[in-house]
C-alpha cells in the first residue's frame, strides 16, 4: 500500500513529481534512438503458442521499427523458433503469407528451400554455384523464447539477458495464471497517426476512465467509497510496472449487461475466486478487485481479470505513426448463453476502445502544435512518469 500519505509517486523518489518533457513524443531524433537502443535490444511479444499448434504452423510478424520481418514456426520437435524472414540467396522476403502450416518454406524467387528448423535443404541448380556450403546458409535465427505461452523475440544476435531475466519480478508475480485456459482470442488493430507512447500511456492509467468512459463504463472503477478511482496497488519495477484496479461492487448493470452476467462470465462481472492465483493477481487480495494491468517495457500490456485476459501490443511505425493491437483472450464457450456473454463483452470493450482511439490522434495533433513542452502528471499517472524514466535510461545508456 502507499505509505506517503497515500501518494504512490512519493514511494519512488527517483521519479520525482515534476513535469515530464514531451520531446520523446515529437522528436524524430528521439525516435531513432528508441529504434536503435530499445526495440532492437528488448524482448518483444509477438504472439501466443496456441496460434501455432502443429509442427509447421507458423506466423510472420513484420516489425517495422526494426526493419525486420520475423518468421515464427513450430518444428517437428515441437520447439518454437524464430528466424529472419529473409532468403539467404538474394535477401528476398521468404514467406509472404501472414500465417499457415508448411512442411518447408520455399522462396518464391529462385526456389531456395528451408526446413522448419531453418536448415537450407534445397537449392535449384545447386551445381551451378561455386563451392556453396548449404550448412552455412540456413535461415538466420532470431532469439525466441516463451513465457507462460507468450512468444517473445529479441533482435539482439545474442541477448545479454534471457527472457526470464528481462521479465524480472513479473515472472514470480504472474507465472501460473491460467493463460492456457483462454484459447479463444479476439483481435482489433488500428493504424494511428500518433507516437507509440501516446497509445502506451492511454492504457497505463485509470485517471481518464471517469471522464472519457463516462458513457460506456459509468462507475466501473469508481464509487462513493472511491470517488477518485484510487488503485488498490501501484508498483514500478526496474523497467516494468503495474496497477491493480479497484472494482465497484455497487454498480447496477444495464439490462443487456445483466443478461450477459447471468448467462456467463463478462468483463464487468465482479465475481471471482483467488484459488490457485499467483501473488501478482489481485496482489492486495481485495474483495473489491477489478483487474490488474502489467506493462511490460517497451510495448506490451497484459491485463489479468478473473477468467479473462486482455493484451495490448503497440508497434511504432514512425515518430508520429503506430499500430495499436488489442486482444481479448477468453475461455471456449460451451453453450449459446456463453457466446452471448462473450459477444456483449467484445462489443462493449470495442466501443470503449473507440472512445480511447479518438484521444490518441487528438493528442498527437496537440503535441504537433509545439505549444506543450511538458506533461503535468497526477499520482494515478505514475506509470506514465515511470515510462519516461525507463526510456531515458535506455536512450542515454
Amino acid at each position, binding site marked *: 500500500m502507499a505509505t506517503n500519505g497515500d501518494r504512490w509517486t512519493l514511494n519512488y523518489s527517483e521519479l520525482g513529481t515534476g513535469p515530464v518533457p514531451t520531446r520523446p513524443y515529437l522528436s524524430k531524433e528521439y525516435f531513432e534512438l528508441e529504434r536503435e537502443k530499445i526495440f532492437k535490444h528488448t524482448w518483444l511479444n509477438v504472439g*501466443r503458442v*496456441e*496460434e*501455432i*499448434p502443429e509442427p509447421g*504452423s507458423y*506466423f510472420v510478424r513484420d516489425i517495422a521499427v526494426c526493419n525486420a520481418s520475423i518468421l515464427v514456426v513450430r518444428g517437428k520437435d515441437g520447439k518454437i523458433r524464430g528466424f529472419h524472414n529473409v532468403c539467404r540467396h538474394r535477401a528476398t522476403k521468404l514467406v509472404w503469407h501472414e*500465417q*499457415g502450416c508448411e512442411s518447408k518454406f520455399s522462396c518464391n524467387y529462385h526456389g531456395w528451400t528451408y526446413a522448419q528448423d531453418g536448415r537450407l535443404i534445397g537449392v535449384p541448380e545447386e551445381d551451378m554455384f561455386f563451392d556453396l556450403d548449404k550448412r552455412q546458409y540456413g535461415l538466420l535465427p532470431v532469439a525466441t523464447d516463451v513465457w507462460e505461452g507468450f512468444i517473445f523475440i529479441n533482435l539482439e544476435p545474442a541477448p545479454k539477458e534471457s527472457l526470464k531475466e528481462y521479465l524480472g519480478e513479473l515472472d514470480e508475480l504472474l507465472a501460473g495464471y491460467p493463460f492456457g485456459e483462454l*484459447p*479463444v*482470442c*479476439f*483481435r*482489433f*488493430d*488500428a*493504424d494511428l497517426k500518433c507516437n507509440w507512447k501516446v497509445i502506451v500511456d492511454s492504457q497505463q492509467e485509470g485517471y481518464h476512465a471517469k471522464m472519457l468512459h463516462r*458513457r*460506456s463504463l459509468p462507475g466501473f472503477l469508481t464509487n462513493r467509497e472511491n470517488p477518485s478511482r484510487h488503485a488498490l496497488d501501484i508498483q514500478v519495477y526496474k523497467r516494468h510496472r503495474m496497477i491493480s484496479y479497484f472494482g465497484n461492487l455497487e454498480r447496477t448493470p*444495464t*439490462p*443487456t*449487461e445483466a*443478461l*450477459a452476467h447471468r*448467462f456467463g462470465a463478462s468483463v464487468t462481472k465482479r465475481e471471482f475466486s483467488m484459488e490457485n492465483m499467483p501473488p501478482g493477481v489481485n496482489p492486495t487480495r481485495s474483495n473489491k478487485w477489478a483487474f490488474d494491468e502489467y506493462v511490460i517495457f517497451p510495448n506490451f500490456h497484459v491485463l489479468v481479470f478473473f477468467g479473462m485476459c486482455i493484451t495490448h501490443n503497440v508497434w511504432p511505425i514512425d515518430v508520429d505513426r503506430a499500430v495499436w*493491437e488489442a*486482444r481479448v*483472450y477468453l475461455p*471456449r*464457450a*460451451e*453453450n*449459446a*448463453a456463453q*457466446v*452471448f456473454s*462473450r*459477444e*456483449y463483452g*467484445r*462489443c*462493449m470493450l*470495442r*466501443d470503449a*476502445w*473507440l*472512445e*480511447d*482511439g*479518438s484521444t*490518441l*490522434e487528438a493528442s498527437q495533433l496537440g503535441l504537433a502544435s509545439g505549444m506543450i513542452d511538458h506533461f503535468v502528471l497526477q499520482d494515478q499517472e505514475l506509470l506514465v512518469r515511470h515510462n519516461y524514466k525507463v526510456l531515458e535510461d535506455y536512450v542515454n545508456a
Partner: protein
Amino acid sequence: MSTQVSQTKAGQTLPAGFEDLERFAAVWSLASERERNRQRLSSSMSEIQELYDALLTRMDQIIEYLNQLPLDNMPEEARRLLYLSLSLAEVAPAVEFYKQPEVVDGFPADRFLPVEVPNMSPAEG
C-alpha cells in the same frame, strides 16, 4: 481480417416459436461482428430500439432453446437465431450508453479492424 461471411438466404426461417422475430432476422441475423456492427451503424436509432426491445424480452426463451443444442453442430435455423441474439449485444451500447448508433466522439469503427488470430478465433462468429 475476419473472413466469416454470412448470407441471409431467402426462405430461411427461425425455429418454431420464434416466428415473430422473423422480420428482424432478415436484417440482423449476421454471422460476424463486422457485419453486425455495420448493420448497427447504418440503421436508425428507431430501428435499433425496435430490435433491442423485441430481443431483450425474448432472450431468456432464446437462450433456453439454444442451450439445448450443441454449439458445433447447430441446425441452420437455430444458428440463425443465435446470430440474431448476438445483434442485441451489438446494439446494446447504442441504446444503453450512447443514445445514437455510433460511439459518441468515437474513433471510426472502420479503422479499428478485427484481425483473425490463427487457431484462436471462435467458431461461433
